C-alpha cells in the first residue's frame, strides 16, 4: 500500500470545509451589518420619544416599540415555560422509560410533528383552537397572547423532544449500569446520572426550542390578534398582543423603501437579533462552564 503524503483532493477538501466554515460566520456578520445599516437611521429619523412610546401605528408616525417588544417577550417566555418541562419529560420518557416498541412509534411521530408547516398550525389555531379557548375561558375573543403561547409551545415541543432524546440516548450505558449496580432506583439514575451527564445537550435542545418560538411569525400572526397593546398585567395574557416578527411580516411588503417606517422595521429586526444573540450567548456561557466542570470531574 502506497501512501501519498498530502494528496490534492485532501487539500481541496480541507480548503472547501474551511471556506464553508468561514462563510457561516461571514453570513451572520453580513446580516448584522445589513440590519445595522438599514435599522440605525431609524434612531435619527424618528424622535426617541416616539420610538419608546406606548403606541404603534406606523401609518400615522407612531413608532412606539414597547408593545411589540413586550408582546414578543411574554409570548416567547410563556411558550418556553410551557414547553420546557413538557418537552424534557417527553424526551426522558422516550429515551429512558418507554419500552422499545413504544419508542419506535413515538420517535418518528414526534419528528413528523416537527415538520408541520407553521401556517398549518396557525390555521388550526385560528379555526379550531381560538374559538374553543374563547368559549372555555369566557374571553371577549380567542385571538389572544395565550393562544399564541399554546401553539408556539406545541411547535417548540418536537424540536426539544427530538434533540433532548438524542442527547439522553448518547449518554453511555455504562453510566446507567454503574448507577444501577450501586443500588440506585431508576428515577435516581435518570435524575442524578443521565440528565447531568447530558446537561449541555439538553440545554441546547431547550435553546433550539425557544429559538423556534421567538422567531416564529406565521402562527402568531394568525392567532394573537396583532393588537399593539402594552401587556403589563397577567390579565393581558388573555388579551390580544402583537409580536415583532408579525409586525415585520405584515408591514414590510407595503412600506416605501428608505422611509422612516422602513428603517424602523429594520430597527425592530435589529432588536430581535440582539435579543436572540444575548439569549444564545448566555446559553453558550452556561454550556461552556459546565463542560469545564465536567472535565474537572473526569480528570
Amino acid at each position, binding site marked *: 500500500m502506497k501512501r501519498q503524503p498530502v494528496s490534492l483532493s485532501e487539500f481541496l477538501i480541507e480548503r472547501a470545509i474551511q471556506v464553508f466554515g468561514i462563510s457561516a460566520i461571514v453570513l451572520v456578520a453580513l446580516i448584522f451589518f445589513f440590519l445595522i445599516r438599514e435599522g440605525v437611521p431609524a434612531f435619527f429619523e424618528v424622535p426617541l420619544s416616539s420610538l419608546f412610546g406606548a403606541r404603534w401605528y406606523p401609518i400615522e408616525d407612531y413608532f412606539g416599540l414597547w408593545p411589540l417588544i413586550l408582546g414578543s417577550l411574554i409570548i416567547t417566555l410563556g411558550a418556553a415555560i410551557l414547553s420546557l418541562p413538557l418537552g424534557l419529560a417527553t424526551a426522558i420518557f422516550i429515551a429512558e422509560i418507554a419500552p422499545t416498541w413504544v419508542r419506535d412509534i413515538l420517535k418518528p411521530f414526534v419528528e413528523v410533528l416537527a415538520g408541520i408547516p407553521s401556517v398549518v398550525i396557525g390555521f388550526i389555531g385560528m379555526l379550531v383552537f381560538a374559538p374553543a379557548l374563547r368559549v372555555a375561558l369566557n374571553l371577549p375573543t380567542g385571538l389572544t397572547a395565550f393562544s399564541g403561547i399554546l401553539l408556539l409551545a406545541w411547535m417548540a415541543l418536537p424540536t426539544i423532544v427530538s434533540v433532548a432524546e438524542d442527547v439522553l440516548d448518547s449518554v453511555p450505558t455504562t453510566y*446507567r449500569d454503574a448507577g444501577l449496580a450501586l443500588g440506585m432506583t431508576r428515577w435516581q439514575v435518570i435524575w442524578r446520572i443521565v440528565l447531568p451527564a447530558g446537561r449541555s445537550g439538553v440545554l441546547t435542545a431547550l435553546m433550539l426550542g425557544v429559538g423556534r418560538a421567538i422567531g416564529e411569525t406565521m402562527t402568531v400572526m394568525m392567532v394573537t390578534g396583532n393588537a399593539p397593546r402594552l401587556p403589563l398585567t397577567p390579565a393581558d395574557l388573555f388579551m390580544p398582543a402583537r409580536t415583532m416578527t408579525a409586525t415585520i411580516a405584515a408591514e414590510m411588503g*407595503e412600506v416605501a423603501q428608505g422611509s422612516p417606517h422602513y428603517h424602523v422595521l429594520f430597527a425592530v429586526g435589529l432588536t430581535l437579533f440582539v435579543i436572540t444573540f444575548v439569549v444564545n450567548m448566555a446559553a453558550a456561557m452556561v454550556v461552556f462552564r459546565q463542560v469545564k466542570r465536567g472535565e474537572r470531574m473526569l480528570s
Partner: protein
Amino acid sequence: MHSMRGQHKTSIIPYCLLLLIGGALLGSGCRPQTDTPVAAAATAIQNKGSDTLVNLALAWAERYQSVHPEVSVAVTGGGSGTGLTALVNGTVDIANASRQIKAEEMTAAEANGITPMEFVIARDAIAVVVHPSNPVDQLTLQQISDIFSGKITRWTEVGGEDRPIVLLSRETNSGTHVYFLEEVLRLGDSENKTLFSTDTLLLPSSEGIGVEVRQNPNAIGYDGLGYVTEDMKTLAVSAAPGEPYWPPTAETVNAGQYPIARDLYMYTAGEPTGAIKTYLEWILSAEAQQIVLDLGFVPVGGE
C-alpha cells in the same frame, strides 16, 4: 428489565406506515391532467395589489383568457400598497388599489420615470359586519367611529346585549383600513386625528375577519361587500343621526345612499398600450362589469 439500551436503531416500520398513508392520500388527489393548456400565451400581463380586488381581478383574468388565449394575466394580491410599490418599482403592468395613489408613491414613481395612470374599474361598499346572533341592526357613522376608537366598549351602549365589543380590522397596509380610518373613524374630516383603539385586532386577511365574525358574538368588523358571506350580518348605516339607515347593496351604493362606499382603481405605468390597453377596455365593457355585479361589487359606467 434494565440496561437493554444503547445505540439501537430506530425501526423503519413506522416510517413506512406513514409513507403508505401519505401515498394513499396523495394518490387520491392525483389524477392524470386532461385539460392542460396547449398553446403558451404570447403576452403576459402582471397584475398585483389590493386584496379587496383580488377575486374580481382573478375572475376577469380567467374570463378574458378563455376568450383571448394569446394573453395570460397573472393576478396576485398583497394589498394596495404592495401593488402600487410594485408598479413604482416597475415589476407589474397593472396595480390594483382600493384607494387612490398617495402623493409620496406618486413622487417615488416619477423619480423612477413612471407616470401612473388611474382607472376607476368598479365601486365597492364597505360593510360593517357582526355575528348573525347580534340583535343590533343599524348604527350611525358617529357610533361606528366611537366603537372603533374605543369610546364605546360594550354592546349595551348601542342597544345590544351585555357583551364586550371586540374590534376587528384589516392590517394597516390594507387600502380598506386607510379608507375606514379616514372616512369612518375621522368622518372624512382631515383635521380629525382619531385613531383606532389599541385593542383593535389587526388581522392579516379578509378571511381572518370572516372567521372571527362568524364565530364570535362579541365581534364587529368591516370589509368589502364582496367578502361578506351569508353567515355574517351586515349593519345598516346612516350618515348622521336622524337620517335614514341604508343597508349596503349595489342599489344603495349607486344611488349614493349608503355612506361607506368608494371607488376601486387600477393603475398602469404610463398610458397603457397593446395588450394592457385592450384588457383595460374590456374590463370597462358591459360583459366584464357583469362579473363585478356577480361578485358583490358595484359596476361602473351606469348601465
